[in-house]
């Protein structure tokens, strides 16, 4: 990863008095794959639009290479965008869609008689031809030049959109939920395809998604957002293993989040029992949130367990079982490869590195209890529902 390219300083945005971005501070490095991740309405698309120049923040600064860009219109930024529904030009064929940006005369500065003169310059047709065909090859659409847009599949349209943006050799490519409209299988293929293209072209990607799996799989850096604020910035591993608060812990992967008290460094109490952990730097007796990932819990016979609970539901997930266990009225999700029938009383063991401690936050108590497991589970896995939420977000942005 290279040097810093873009920086947002205290960017705020509001529509009709409703604050949608609250002091966003963020920097993006050259050649970085950065993902803005969050639920619908979190402000991720707005942040992307500010970078693209389609929205001007009401406060704060947008810096490109250290230069203020707030008032520079989109067509003068070295940034290109892949839109959510591709926004391909239906009246042009594949070739002309990709060539669109190249055909627009660019203002170039030329030395002439010792003076720099600005003038508009068109690319020669031959160069356009070469660059378009080259780019179509990159996105594996060679031979599709003369196709009409409506003759292409969703995945092919997606590739055209990417080629159309990349052919202009932007420094940064912005992608607004680019895979949202594709089916699951195609989405997986395109994820690795995008990653490959990013590495091959060696440019920066800023990627917006609500799909945490997608974010974890592709990103160098993930920015988790909610309610117009950045909740956490970090590598996928950081975000997953050391979530900063209950929101992040819940949004990225599955988490059991419990109330606990930090007695001293490396010692936490919950369920009236003290556990060793690897966290330190909390005030003595500070109330905290304790995160335990479902896959980190070891199920043991009752007599060997640190805690004891009763299985209330089991769902077969292929690799593992989602097992819901009731501990004194608090329900945990435990992922295990062994089957434990409903009604069985089990014990569990938690190792110090299975436990992650977080400071209390506004999200404490909102997540991490699997009492209403089934509904929440449906929500997480229902692609169509998420798509509708994405629409909701767009609606909010555009007041539609």
């Amino acid at each position, binding site marked *: 990863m290279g040097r810093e390219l873009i920086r947002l300083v205290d960017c705020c945005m509001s529509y009709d008095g409703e604050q949608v971005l609250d002091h966003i501070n963020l920097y993006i490095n050259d050649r970085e794959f950065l993902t803005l991740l969050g639920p619908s309405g979190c402000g991720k698309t707005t942040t992307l639009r500010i970078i693209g120049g389609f929205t001007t923040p009401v406060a704060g600064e947008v810096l490109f290479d250290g230069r203020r860009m707030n008032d520079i219109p989109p*067509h003068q930024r070295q940034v290109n*965008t892949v839109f959510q529904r591709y926004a391909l*030009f239906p009246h042009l064929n594949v070739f002309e869609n990709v060539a669109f940006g190249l055909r627009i005369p660019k203002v170039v500065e030329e030395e002439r008689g010792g003076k720099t003169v600005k003038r508009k310059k068109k690319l020669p047709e031959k160069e356009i031809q070469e660059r378009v065909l080259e780019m179509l090859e990159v996105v594996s659409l060679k031979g599709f030049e003369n196709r009409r847009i409506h003759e292409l599949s969703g995945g092919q349209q997606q590739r055209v959109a990417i080629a159309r943006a990349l052919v202009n050799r932007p420094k940064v490519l912005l992608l607004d939920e680019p895979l949202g409209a594709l089916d699951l299988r195609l989405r997986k293929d395109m994820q690795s395809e995008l990653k490959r293209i990013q590495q091959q072209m060696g440019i920066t990607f800023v990627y917006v998604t609500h799909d945490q799996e997608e974010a974890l799989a592709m990103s160098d850096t993930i920015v988790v957002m909610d309610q117009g604020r950045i909740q956490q910035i970090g590598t996928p591993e950081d975000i997953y293993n050391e979530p900063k608060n209950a929101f992040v812990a819940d949004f990225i992967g599955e988490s059991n989040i419990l109330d606990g008290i930090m007695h001293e460094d490396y010692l936490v109490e919950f369920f009236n029992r003290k556990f060793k952990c690897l966290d330190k730097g909390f005030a003595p007796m500070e109330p905290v949130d304790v995160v335990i990932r479902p896959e980190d819990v070891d199920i043991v016979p009752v007599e060997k367990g640190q805690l004891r609970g009763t299985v209330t539901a089991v769902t077969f997930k292929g690799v593992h079982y989602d097992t819901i266990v009731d501990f004194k009225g608090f329900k945990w999700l435990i992922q295990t490869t062994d089957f434990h029938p409903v009604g069985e009383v089990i014990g569990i063991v938690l190792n110090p590195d299975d436990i992650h401690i977080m400071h209390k936050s506004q999200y404490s108590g909102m997540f991490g209890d699997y009492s209403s497991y089934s509904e929440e589970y449906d929500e997480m896995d229902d692609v169509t529902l998420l798509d509708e939420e994405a629409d909701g977000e767009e609606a909010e942005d555009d007041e539609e």
Partner: protein
Amino acid sequence: MNGKNRFGGRLAMVLTFLFLYAPIFVLMVFSFNDSSSRTLWKGFTLDWYGELFQDGIIINSLYTTLLVALLSSLIATVAGTFAAIGFFNMKRRVRTPLMTINNIPMTNADIVTGVSMCLLFVAAFGAWNSFAQQMNEANGTSLPSLAMGFGTLLIAHITFNIPYVILSVMPKLRQMDKNLVEAAQDLGCTWMGAFFKVVLPEIKPGVVNGLLIAFTMSVDDFVISYFTAGPTTSTLAMTIYGMTKKRISPKINAVSTLLFVTVLLLLVIVNLREMQQSRAKKDPRRAARSAASSRRGTILGAGALAAVLLALILLSRQNNSRVVNVCGWGENIDPALIEQFQEETGIRVNYQTAEGNETMYSKVVLGGSGYDVIVPSDYMVSQMRQEGLLAELDFANIPNFSLIDDTYKHLSYDPENLYSVPYTWGTLGIIYNTAMVDEPITSWSALFDPQYAGQVLMINNPRDAIGVGLMYLGYSVNTTDEGEIREAYQLLAEAREQGVYQSFVMDEVYDKMEAGEAAIAVYYAGDFLAMYENNPDLAFVVPQEGSNWFVDAMCVLKDAPHKEAAEEWINFICSTDACLANMDYIWYASPNVQALADYPAYYEELYGEEMDPALYAIMAAPEEVLAGCEAYDALPAETNDLYKELWTVLGIG
């Protein structure tokens, strides 16, 4: 079973198309009819097309119609398209009420739009003109004064066209991916660049559609044009409407046919192009070629359009410094006279037509009519004179006034003869079909006689209809006695009850009498002559009880902008040559005594046959007939109100 169904479906389709296109087909057929009748086929001719291009009034109004339609639809399309984009980008909270406001003019009655625009123009121009006058007097500037005319007509058409364009562009914008503009900007376009490169191709069908609708609406419009065109401009619709007092000239069939065929050709071309393009889409090489040719086509089309526009604008620039604005009845002047006057004097004549005295009167009273010369009938002269709407004429400028027979001077409507110069005169009478009645008709009683039930056409105007009753009862047509008027009305009402009247008509009388659909009608002598040409079974009689004889006279309005030119026009029309030409064209008798006497000879020379003296006597009623006739005077307001009330009770007007 299936075959039967298909046959039924085809039959329904054929019938539907027949229903839609039969009227137009009939109109097209009759444009080639060797007769002025709208019902009788007398053989094939192209004469109407020839005459059409010699009729300056129709050609001028056609030109105005097309120019206004072209300019207003183009301007409205540009304005409406950008307005639609503006609306589209607004928040829904703002957009919804705005769209409602946009839709109001379309649902609003044309008459309201027309009158309100007229009032606005009159008020605005009035204020400006008095300001300009003051400025000019005080500071010696030369600010022009403004009047309604082509400009206001154009503004009005643009105004009522814009909502249609917006309505037709909006759905296309809604269908468009909202990110397209941003995508284009993102790729380096400015907003305008994005508009031309991306938005316009996307919404093009809507824009073209809007343009076509706007053009059609503009050609179609009568009411709004009528109120905003001022005295100098007439659209085709206005000219046709002006003809309804008389017969609608078959030249209109010809011009309508030409318009229809033009539009049809345009549509065929557009459809062929679309077919060609959709075929080309399947073959990329042909697509490239057709794209190139369509680009060339677009450039050629735009060039041609620009050239046409330029030519039209240059043509419309033939601005003679002197003009005269004349308002007459439709088909009530030989259009060649207008050309002749223009050539001789260099004064341009803006000839507009009104449908009747009352319409003309209300337009004058509304203000801003801008007319110089009007041609009201006797009683209307009287009314307008008393209301101070007329200017005293300077008879030194009208030497041909001496050619007018004294019989037509100093009549009751203008006792001192200061305000009017007679134009035509004639009698009201009974037209009947000799093949359909047993004995010649001589009395008004035929119009109340149950033996002719369903055979009688009563004239559809209160003064003449109730007048018939008064004349039959032996009362004066100018009576103010309520009892007498009610008695006359009673006659009409009873006859109507008994089903004597087939209908109350004005210009439809031509078709019905010519086709033998009715036996008896009340109408004017001059119009009988036109019908007689097409049906020699018809006869005309001035009943024994006497009748109304009427004079239409030329007057100059008090606020006429071109009084001198107006007097020059009147003088020209009074000349014996002009009167002869006019008499031959409209069949109404001239007050020019020389012309009246010379007409049979003129006829013989022109047509190579002798004029039937009986017909001549009908056109120019001899003195003994006139002696039994009475002219209409202006009635006092309460009597007018009584007429109106009775007419309403009768349920005709």
